[in-house]
């Protein structure tokens, strides 16, 4: 029987399927961090259980860590306690931790791929909704709650309904200045912040195929922003080239065996998806969000859609969003002043993102009134950026290169955007207060963020390259 890629991987991980019950699915790799794990460890203690397969869990500290002076003790007491708790829990339960100060520390969704932990065909989970990132390698990867973190600790399995499948094809060539972030913001704007709920999405088509692994991760990362549990891309030579030689990737004979298997991981020609959508890459402009969910996005040269143009039942929520943002119906977004630029997060903090920003800002200066934070995704990204001299370019432009973590994406640490200020951000969520109480977030690509940093206003990057 022909199968989609999701079905192939799913079916290979079913431990038990019983009528009237969700499947028991085996989880190959479990990633954890300091915020969503402590209550799960507590649960194990209460039940008197060990971690069933500690070698299949990897930990790092990312959500709650400072991005300056990481060599010093964490100042904020609760944050320090939570990070210390992770260290203690990992030691007690025998879990490998890449904590602060470790050369592999970083955002959990950045370190998995760069260490070769993320591999095609795997099932991977983490107590973080952006676990969908790892789907870029052709893995089934999705975010879970803390009760499920405890389940995976205790059993290396989850009870899960088999998801519906959706294929999203993007074909054709992208315009100059348009990248992966614009593709995914465009898709979310088209199908809404709930349009993918209940589905696993397979991204396909020539425009997706031509993307690098970093760019594919950006696409899969934001699958959750349309409600999908996960998104994935069939592995191909780009994937294999990225994985080969990485620290924990298979080597020698194991590599050959793995590669042979990975080459079978694609949706069969006549496989049936529950939904199929197609988009033309040439239609996509640099994108920006103007509201308070990631579905409220548009091409950067467009005007903010009018409240009257929304379905009547949705108008109060829509108006609430525009009021929060301080935006008016039908107004252009180009030229709006910017206070902060944040380049980072599990969506856009990889070396390719930093290179793209550096290439654009080389020889330019940030606008005087704008504060620019660049937060690399991991210690390895930071190290490579410095080796390539990107830090010097950023410094000359007035951009601040900080240390790795989730940072201003969710404002759990001290990296918060002040109330009322506008932040152009390469992160993934523009929810009310996401970057700090009453902060106003506009989601964009790294290139569009860099353009705003330099001009101090929302700018169409196509005019500057």
């Amino acid at each position, binding site marked *: 029987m022909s199968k989609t890629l999701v079905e192939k991987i799913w079916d290979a991980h079913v431990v038990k399927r019983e009528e009237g019950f969700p499947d028991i699915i*085996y989880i190959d790799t479990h990633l954890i961090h300091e915020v969503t794990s402590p209550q799960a460890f507590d649960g194990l203690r209460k039940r008197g259980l060990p971690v069933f397969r500690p070698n299949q869990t990897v930990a790092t500290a990312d959500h709650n860590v400072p991005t300056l002076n990481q060599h010093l003790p964490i100042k904020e007491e609760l944050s320090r306690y939570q990070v210390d708790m992770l260290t203690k829990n990992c030691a007690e339960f025998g879990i490998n931790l890449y904590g602060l100060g470790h050369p592999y520390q970083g955002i959990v969704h950045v370190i998995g791929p760069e260490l070769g932990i993320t591999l095609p065909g795997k099932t991977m989970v983490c107590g973080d909704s952006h676990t969908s990132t790892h789907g870029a390698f052709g893995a089934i990867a999705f975010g879970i709650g803390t009760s499920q973190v405890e389940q995976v600790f205790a059993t290396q399995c989850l009870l899960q309904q088999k998801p519906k499948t959706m294929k999203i094809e993007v074909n054709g060539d992208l315009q100059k200045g348009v990248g992966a972030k614009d593709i995914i913001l465009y898709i979310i704007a088209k199908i809404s912040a709930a349009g993918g709920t209940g589905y696993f999405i397979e991204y396909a088509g020539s425009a997706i195929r031509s993307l690098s692994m970093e760019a594919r991760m950006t696409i899969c990362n934001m699958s959750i922003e349309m409600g999908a549990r996960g998104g994935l891309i069939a592995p191909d030579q780009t994937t294999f080239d990225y994985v080969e030689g990485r620290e924990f990737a298979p080597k020698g004979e194991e590599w050959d065996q793995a590669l042979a298997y990975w080459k079978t991981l694609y949706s069969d020609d006549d496989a049936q998806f529950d939904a199929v959508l197609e988009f033309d890459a040439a239609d996509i402009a640099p994108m920006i969000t103007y509201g308070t969910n990631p579905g409220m996005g548009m091409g950067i040269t467009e005007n903010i859609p009018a409240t009257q143009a929304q379905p009547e039942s949705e108008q109060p929520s829509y108006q609430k969003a525009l009021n929060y943002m301080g935006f008016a119906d039908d107004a252009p977004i180009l030229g709006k002043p910017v206070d902060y630029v944040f380049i980072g997060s599990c969506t856009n903090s990889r070396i390719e993102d930093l290179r793209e920003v550096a290439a654009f800002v080389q020889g330019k200066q940030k606008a005087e009134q704008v504060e620019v934070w660049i937060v690399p995704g991991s210690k390895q990204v930071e190290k490579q950026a410095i080796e390539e001299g990107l830090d010097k370019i950023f410094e000359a432009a007035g951009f601040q290169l900080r240390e790795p973590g989730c940072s201003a994406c969710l404002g759990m640490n001290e990296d918060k955007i002040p109330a009322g200020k506008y932040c152009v951000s390469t992160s993934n969520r523009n929810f009310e207060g996401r970057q700090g109480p009453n902060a106003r977030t506009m989601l964009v690509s790294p290139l569009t963020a860099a353009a705003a940093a330099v001009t101090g206003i929302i700018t169409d990057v196509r005019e500057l390259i």
Partner: protein
Amino acid sequence: MKKFETLTTTVVPLPIENIDTDQIIPARFLKATTREGFGDNLFRDWRYDSNNQPKADFVMNDATYQGKVLVAGKNFGCGSSREHAAWAIQDYGFDVVISSFFADIFKGNALNNGVLPIQVTDEFLETIFDTVFKNPNTEIIVDLENQTVTLSETGAQQSFEINPYKKSCLINGYDDIDFILNNKASIETFEQTK
């Protein structure tokens, strides 16, 4: 997990769409390492101003509306997977959330904590809002066994879907770990054949 029983209660109406888990519990309150106490910060930035004073226009600060059921606009619980959102809702005292659409992860987290997410049609959701805004003392009856939700005042009723396994978990008060642990032998067999 405590057992879920039939519930008759007034409700708290929150007719806002796409309520994400950052609104339910902002990230800066996720530093606790236990499951308790999150209710104090449920909807923190909608409930309190920057001086920590209650905002009079927010429904949870209006004594007119109280009860064990939260009724909210569509796509409730989108965004972050933080289970703290379900803990906050439960800790505040809600046993049920009714909406016309739920985000996946929130729905699973709620069920894993004995909070019942009930999906109704857009029309029925409107009916609940209309009825409750006209008469805040309107009671709602949630009958999990028969999978119905009923407005006592008008008798308007709708049935709802729930996975039969999850239903039995709620009614009996047991959780997924108990279930999976009973299949340990299957897991070990799977590992050997993989």
